[in-house]
Every structure is written in structure tokens, then in C-alpha cells.
């Protein structure tokens, strides 16, 4: 009788060895097609659960499940390691996207009709993100964000401060604010990624848009291109809190929302968090004026959220049906209202008021993608910038940046060289 215990154990082992993961898009018991989306913006979880409900209420043949986990990139990568793919992923237009395209785990969606309505500029950004050029299209841009400086509109009006147009004006403004006993900037550098926000916003003004690719081709070095950014970043630090490394992103948003500083150099994505602390805050933004010339500035804007269908997904048509629903004008408008984002779809959308100060740049199309979207995540540039801000040694930082870059991008550089050898140098 007791022997059955061993048998049970053996049986369990066998079952374990035989059983395989349920793939995506399986038809469930009730005959519906299952579509699973994992999207990486936990702050938009409410929006997506509404979308999920509405979709399921109006569709009898497809059951949609959207999850918005915290730290989704780790979860996605862990799931990819397990080869357990969702049907659609919602990710940003950054190096992860480049890797996923390179790994051939995303489906070519060039046959998706909705692409016609997407702003070409954003499709170009995605194209530029591919490590080596491909024929297909692997993502449908949803919304973009912009990084610059958020400011307290009421505080500015009260003191008669003006929006700075170039670097000197910015520094003069900071001195003025400081003289009134108010903290000009808040930083939340305990969360390393926030170190990248001012960095990106300044780098687009001061370094070529394709710096990373130029370096990969051996045409320039970061020491040359990033020196001015680094030096100016250190100056900004003087106008922040005494110990910016003690506070995280949440703390910084809270402090800025409570009026503890006049400005916060971060992306538009921070607005919902800030407004949740203080809904009455009169929030606006302006483009980071890092250039010495007023017309040398450009808005730092990149794809914040885009949807990719996984190559593994067995029901591409059902996935497109879901995309159609997501990209319906009224849903996009709801998203940009809730998350203060810029739509990637063409059409008559009402931009959120906190982007007022950036609207001109958006309408002109004077926008440049984030530099960090080209940085390999394992190089941890955010932590390197944090180290630099602590040690304040420009030369050490830049020379380490250059040597680390070559090491972490070795495989990419080789890939690009191989490609160019085969196809001839396209440029």
C-alpha cells in the first residue's frame, strides 16, 4: 500500500517531463480564441483593464486578457527564457525592441491595415532602432512621450518667471529661483533610470541623433560627443536638492507635486503620478534648452508604447482584431488623456494641456529620439550616469563610457559589419 507513494513520485516525474507549456492563442473550452497581451506600463493598468472589459463585452469569438505587471521587462524576458510567449506585447521603442527584432521572435506586421494611419515619423524611428535593416515592420507605434522640464505654472506666473529658450537663460532662471529661496529642480536619483531623463533631454540638443550608430561605425567617440552634455548636467545638479541620491522617482514626484521645487526635469509620463498626489497642480512643460542657441534645441521624444505581435502567435487575424480595437480613435484619446501622451496615429486628437509648452515642437515635427534607446541595457548606462553625478569626474566617466561601449556592443558591431560587408555600405 505504501509503495504507491514511490509510484506516485515516479508518476509525477514522468508527467512533469512529458507535460509542455500551453502555447499562446489556444482555443479555450468555450471555443473562443484567447489573446494575451502583456504591456510594460503598470501606470496604465486601469486604462487597459477597461479596454479589456469593453473588448470582451463586444466580441463573442475572442477573449482578450491584458496584464500590466510591475517590472514587466524582467517578467517578459523571464518568460522569453522559458519560451512562454504572450500573443501581443506592449513595449517601448528602445533597445529591447531592437533585440527582440534581432532574435526574430516578433511577427512581421507589414500586412496590418492599421499601419496606414500611423505617423511615418514613428515608423522611421522603429526602422532606425533595428540593429541591421530588415524588410518587415515589427511594431505598431501607439503613443509617444516627450522629456524636458515639467514646471509649476502657478509658481512661474506668481514670480513672473519666463520659459528659458537657451542654456544661459535656463541658468539665469535657476539663479533667480534660488535667490527667492525656492528649490529650482527636484531629482529622484535613487532610482537610477531617472538619471537618464535630463541626460536624454540635453543630449538630443547637443549630440548628433545617431551618435551611437556613428560610434559603432568607428566615426566618432562618446568622449567627443558627450562632453558638453556631461559638463552641463553637472551644472544642473547645483540647483537640485542637497542629497538627490536619497530619493526615488516616487519621492521626487511627490515633492514636486507639493510645490517643494519649481521644476522637475523628467518625461511627460510622470504627469499622472504627479497629479495623483496633487490634482490641483497647474502643470506645464518646456523643452530642455541645453543648446546655447535658442533655435538649436529639439524636443526629446520617442515611442513610449507600441504593440508587437509575437511570431509564435497562431491567430494573427484575431491579434489584428484586437489591435483595431486598441487603435480606435476614442481609445487612443482616452489613453492620452489618462497618461498625458502624444498619439502616434494621425488624426484629430486633443493633446493634454501639460504639453502646451512643447506643442510647437510637436507640430513642427522638431523631435529627436532618446539617445538611451540605443544603449544596451546590460551596460547600465543609467548607473554609470549616477556614478558620474556622484563623483563629478567628466573624463573618467566618458572614457569608461567609450571602453564599456565597445565591450558591450561587440556582437552588435560585428553584426553590423557583417551586414555591410554582405550588402555593401548602403550609405
Amino acid at each position, binding site marked *: 500500500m*505504501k*509503495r504507491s*507513494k514511490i509510484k506516485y*513520485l515516479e508518476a*509525477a516525474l514522468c508527467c*512533469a*517531463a512529458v*507535460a*509542455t*507549456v500551453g502555447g499562446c492563442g489556444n482555443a479555450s473550452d468555450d471555443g473562443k480564441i484567447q489573446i494575451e497581451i*502583456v504591456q510594460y506600463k*503598470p501606470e496604465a493598468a486601469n486604462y487597459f483593464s477597461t479596454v479589456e472589459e469593453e473588448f470582451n463585452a463586444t466580441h463573442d469569438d475572442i477573449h482578450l486578457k491584458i*496584464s500590466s*505587471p*510591475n*517590472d514587466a521587462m*524582467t*517578467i*517578459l524576458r*523571464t*518568460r522569453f*527564457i*522559458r*519560451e*512562454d510567449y504572450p500573443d501581443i506585447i506592449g513595449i517601448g521603442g528602445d533597445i529591447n525592441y531592437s533585440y527582440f527584432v534581432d532574435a526574430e521572435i516578433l511577427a512581421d506586421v507589414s500586412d496590418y491595415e492599421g499601419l496606414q494611419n500611423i505617423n511615418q515619423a514613428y515608423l522611421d524611428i522603429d526602422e532606425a532602432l533595428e540593429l541591421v535593416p530588415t524588410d518587415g515592420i515589427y511594431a505598431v507605434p501607439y503613443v509617444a512621450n516627450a522629456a524636458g522640464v515639467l514646471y509649476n505654472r502657478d509658481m512661474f506666473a506668481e514670480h513672473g518667471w519666463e520659459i528659458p529658450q537657451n542654456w544661459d537663460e535656463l541658468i539665469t532662471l535657476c539663479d533667480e529661483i534660488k535667490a527667492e529661496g525656492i528649490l529650482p529642480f527636484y531629482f529622484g536619483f535613487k532610482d537610477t533610470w531617472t538619471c537618464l531623463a535630463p541626460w536624454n533631454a540635453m543630449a538630443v540638443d547637443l549630440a548628433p541623433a545617431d551618435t551611437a550608430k556613428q560610434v559603432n561605425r568607428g566615426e566618432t567617440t562618446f568622449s567627443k560627443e558627450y562632453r558638453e552634455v556631461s559638463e552641463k548636467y553637472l551644472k544642473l545638479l547645483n540647483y537640485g536638492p542637497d542629497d538627490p541620491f536619497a530619493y526615488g522617482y*516616487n*519621492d521626487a*514626484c*511627490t515633492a514636486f507635486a507639493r510645490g517643494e521645487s519649481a521644476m522637475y526635469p523628467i518625461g511627460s509620463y510622470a504627469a499622472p*503620478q504627479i497629479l*495623483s*498626489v496633487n490634482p490641483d497642480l497647474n502643470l506645464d512643460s518646456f523643452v530642455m534648452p541645453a543648446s546655447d542657441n535658442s533655435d538649436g534645441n529639439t524636443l526629446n521624444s520617442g515611442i513610449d508604447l507600441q504593440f508587437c505581435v509575437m511570431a509564435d502567435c497562431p491567430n494573427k487575424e484575431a491579434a489584428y482584431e484586437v489591435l483595431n480595437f486598441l487603435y480606435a480613435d476614442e481609445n487612443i484619446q482616452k489613453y492620452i488623456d489618462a497618461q498625458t501622451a502624444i498619439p502616434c496615429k494621425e488624426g484629430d486628437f486633443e493633446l493634454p494641456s501639460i504639453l502646451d509648452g512643447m506643442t510647437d515642437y510637436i507640430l513642427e515635427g522638431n523631435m529627436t529620439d532618446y539617445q538611451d534607446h540605443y544603449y544596451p541595457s546590460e551596460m547600465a548606462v543609467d548607473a554609470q550616469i549616477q556614478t558620474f553625478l556622484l563623483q563629478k569626474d567628466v573624463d573618467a566617466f566618458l572614457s569608461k563610457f567609450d571602453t564599456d561601449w565597445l565591450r558591450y556592443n561587440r556582437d552588435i558591431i560585428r553584426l553590423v559589419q557583417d551586414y555591410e560587408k554582405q550588402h555593401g555600405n548602403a550609405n
Partner: protein
Amino acid sequence: MKNMMNKKVNTPAMILLILGLSTIIFPLYLTIVIAFKQPSEMTNSISGILSLPKVWSLNNFREAMEITNFWNSLRNSLLITLLTVALSIAVHSLMGYALGRNKAHSKFYSFVYLFIVSGMFVPFAILMMPIAKQTAEMGLANWFGVVLLYVVFYMPMNVLLYSGYLVNIPMALEEAAKVDGASTWRTYWKIIFPVMRPMHATVAVLTALAVWNDVMTPLIVMAGSEQNTLPLAQLNFQSQFGTNYNLAFASYLLSLIPILIFYIICQKQILNGVVNGAVK
């Protein structure tokens, strides 16, 4: 110990111990107080930090439970811990018995014994990436996979404990049963298993504490399955609390309460178990 009657109470030691105790009480006191307060009551002055909440309301807890899906995580944690402990006692004691009785005179068993016990040196870090892949390939990226992994991870330690304990159990006990015609299997469950009861308690305590508080294994295996254990839920929902530290602390406290209750009830067994396990 017997001569204590003629010694006085050691006053300096008492004072030292009471002072030392404050380093343990203070963080816990803080946790409780913050968990009950409202965000508006949080100030950065000493009196503000130490003061009791104005109203003892359970609202923070209710909200924290909702955010972290507390009952679900609690159920998972309980399920994983209880099943791991039960399986560990059954499987590891059997293995300890088989190896302990044979390793002295059989090369095969002594090799297996060394092989398993040396598993103690394998850091989780080297296993974690392949394990993430492997559990998924086997369809075990769920709580049951976590349990199986625990049974393997704690095997070296527990087999060592059981086979060590077995040395104290005379063969004569078994031989008497054999004379009555009982099979080895029956003899084990009827005679040896009950005699090892003190070791079962030790193994249960050690395994339960380690499993209950473990973050890494469920993090690697269950990430993305929307199933959490209690510690994993704290990790996954950390950013959803934002700067509402009161809510966060309510959630921390909730996750500590089950083990605190368990400790208060079984304090003696836990202390004994831990000491036995370490001293062997």
C-alpha cells in the same frame, strides 16, 4: 545551572539586554504605527515619527489587501510551505534512511550520499537561469514546480540531518520487526519513521521557515503567472504603493503576521528545531 540558586540576578546583563531589545522592538513598533497612520500624519520630526496614530483604523489594511491580492498570496504561500514540508519529511527521511543504512558498506550508496550532500555547495545563482528555462520546458512554471524545486534544494541538508540521526537508532529495532516477517518498507513506516519524530520536527521547522520567506525561487519560476507568494507580492506591488508608505507598511505588516502568529504559538519547537539543525 543547578547552582544558580546561590547567584544573584545579574543586573548589568539585564540592563544590556533590555537596551539591546529596543533595537528589535523599535523597528517593529515603527512598522505597526506607520501601518495605522494616514499619509497626512507623517512628519519628519521625532515626535511625529514616534507618536501613535490618531485613529486606529483598519482602512490601510483593507486597501493593501486589495492591491496585493492578499488572500490569494496567503493561500499560495501556505500551500507551497505545507506541501514542501510534508514532501520533505516523507522523501528526505526515506532517502536519509536508505543512504544512512547502506553508505558504510556500499560504494554506490556512499557515493550517492556524498553526491547529494555536496549539493549544499551549489549556490542558487548558478541554477537560477537554467531552472527558469527548465521548469517552463517541463510545464512546471507554477507553484507545484516551486515545491519540487524546494524538495530538491533542501535535500542535501535534510538528508544529512536524517542520516546523522539514524546512527542513534539501533539496527536491533528493525531486526526484531524483520523476524515477524515485515517487509523493509513496512518496517520503515511502522518503526523507523515514528522513531525519527524529533528530527521530523527539526526538518519541518527549518524547511518551513526557509520556504515561507524565500523570494528568489518563486520570483524565477512563477514570474508572470500572476500568482504570488506573500514575499513575492511585496516585491511585485512595491511600486504600486508609490509614496503612500502607510499603505506599504500595512502590507508589510500583513505579510509578517502569519509567521508571527506561528512563532508565538510554536516558539519552543522553532528554537529547538533551529538549534538542532545547525548543531546537527
